[in-house]
């Protein structure tokens, strides 16, 4: 009897303890889950370029001011006309008045139209600007993606080349050979030329050999043709033995 009581107390306490723990975990206790997202630097550089674009819409405000000036002149004219008209006969005055009014109306109409036209123009301009900005942004995004893809392919090529590269004993720290590899869309290496020699012919030859030995970068077949034409028809790679002590 006493045993069963103590068991039920124990079960209750244990469950409460565990439920409290689970609840604490569920509500807010999460040990350092704040993530630091590290952006690669080239993306940051692109983002900075975005800023000047926003300046473009500013010139819109200027055209507004100009159409208002004629109004003042008009009022002056009207007053002079009135003075002159006062001297002339009364019948004429009425007619003249009528004419003036009409003229004024016509002028106002014209002004209104002009303003409308300007407005339309401005709107169009705005729209085109907006479209341009959009296109530019899209292009930027595309360029970014291209850049990323290109980077990964470039890394792949570098890795493959360094795997195939056997450095000659004459390699020294500070030597650098720049070669240009010509590729076809299947990823095959069709030509290697030395652009900048290191001064050591054995070293240059080993670099050339590395590119020839790599033979084909099969992974390049999966690349968009546009990107390939733009960046990978010719690839320049610099070789320098950085990890040597000499």
């Amino acid at each position, binding site marked *: 009897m006493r045993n069963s009581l*103590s068991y039920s107390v*124990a079960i209750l306490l*244990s*469950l409460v303890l565990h439920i409290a723990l689970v609840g604490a975990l569920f509500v807010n206790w999460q040990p350092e889950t704040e993530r630091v997202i590290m952006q690669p630097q080239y993306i940051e550089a692109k983002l900075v370029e975005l800023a000047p674009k926003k300046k473009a819409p500013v010139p819109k405000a200027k055209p507004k001011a100009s159409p208002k000036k004629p109004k003042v002149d008009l009022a002056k004219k009207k007053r002079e006309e009135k003075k002159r008209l006062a001297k002339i006969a009364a019948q004429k005055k009425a007619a003249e008045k009528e004419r003036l009014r009409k003229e004024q109306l016509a002028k106002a109409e014209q002004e209104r139209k002009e303003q409308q036209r300007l407005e339309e123009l401005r709107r169009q301009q705005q729209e085109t600007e907006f479209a341009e900005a959009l296109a530019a942004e899209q292009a930027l995004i595309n360029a970014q993606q291209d850049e990323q893809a290109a980077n990964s392919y470039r890394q792949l090529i570098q890795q493959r080349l360094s795997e195939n590269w056997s450095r000659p004993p004459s390699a020294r720290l500070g030597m650098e050979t720049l070669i240009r590899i010509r590729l076809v869309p299947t990823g095959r290496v069709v030509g290697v030329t030395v652009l900048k020699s290191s001064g050591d012919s054995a070293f240059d030859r080993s670099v050339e050999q590395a590119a020839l030995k790599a033979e084909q970068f099969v992974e390049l077949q999966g690349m968009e043709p546009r990107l390939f034409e733009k960046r990978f028809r010719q690839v320049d790679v610099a070789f320098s033995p950085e990890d040597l002590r000499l």
Partner: protein
Amino acid sequence: MIEENLSIWSLIANASLLVQGVMAILFIASVMSWVMIIQRGLYLRSAQRGFREFEDAFWSGVDLNSLYTDLTQKAKQQGGTDGIENVFRSGFREFNRLTQGDKADPDAVMEGADRAMRVALSREDEKLNISLPFLASVASVSPYIGLFGTVWGIMNSFRGLAMVQQATLATVAPGISEALIATAMGLFAAIPAVIAYNRYAALVEMTNSNYETFAEEFSSILHRQVHAH
């Protein structure tokens, strides 16, 4: 970059089935071991208290017969007594029965009373030791179970790593983190169990030796009584 929620819950939810099973086992083990810890704690404490109270009553100079009848009354009310009271009752009962006859051999009486008390002692020992083996098993096994879950999870995340072209830390980190939760849970279940087991084992030993000492003392009192006649 993919938005990844690394809260513990999403990690558990995304873990593989086997790792989740390991976590469930460990959770249940933890709940059960805490049930045992609390229940044993209460029981052992009450046993200690009962022993102290009984000793006070016993050495207060009360008549053994009246003590015996009081305890029998109590046993009737509560449906049984615990601990040292049982030892006393069974010893005294046997002693009374054996001395009932006129020609009781003193040695036979003592032997019978001692045997009865020995039986009662070993019963009490059993009662004190209930579920301590379970705590010991949880303490020693649950780290291994957790480790198994972790090894399995890490194995899988490395297999996943082999599939991707460009391996970054971010591709394996969630898998390893999720796998390590299993070890954490194993330790979480094991540590209280180890502490409780050690403490309770010591407590049980102490209580037992208390009982035995009392049994010896009681036996000497009975001995005096039976040989005084």
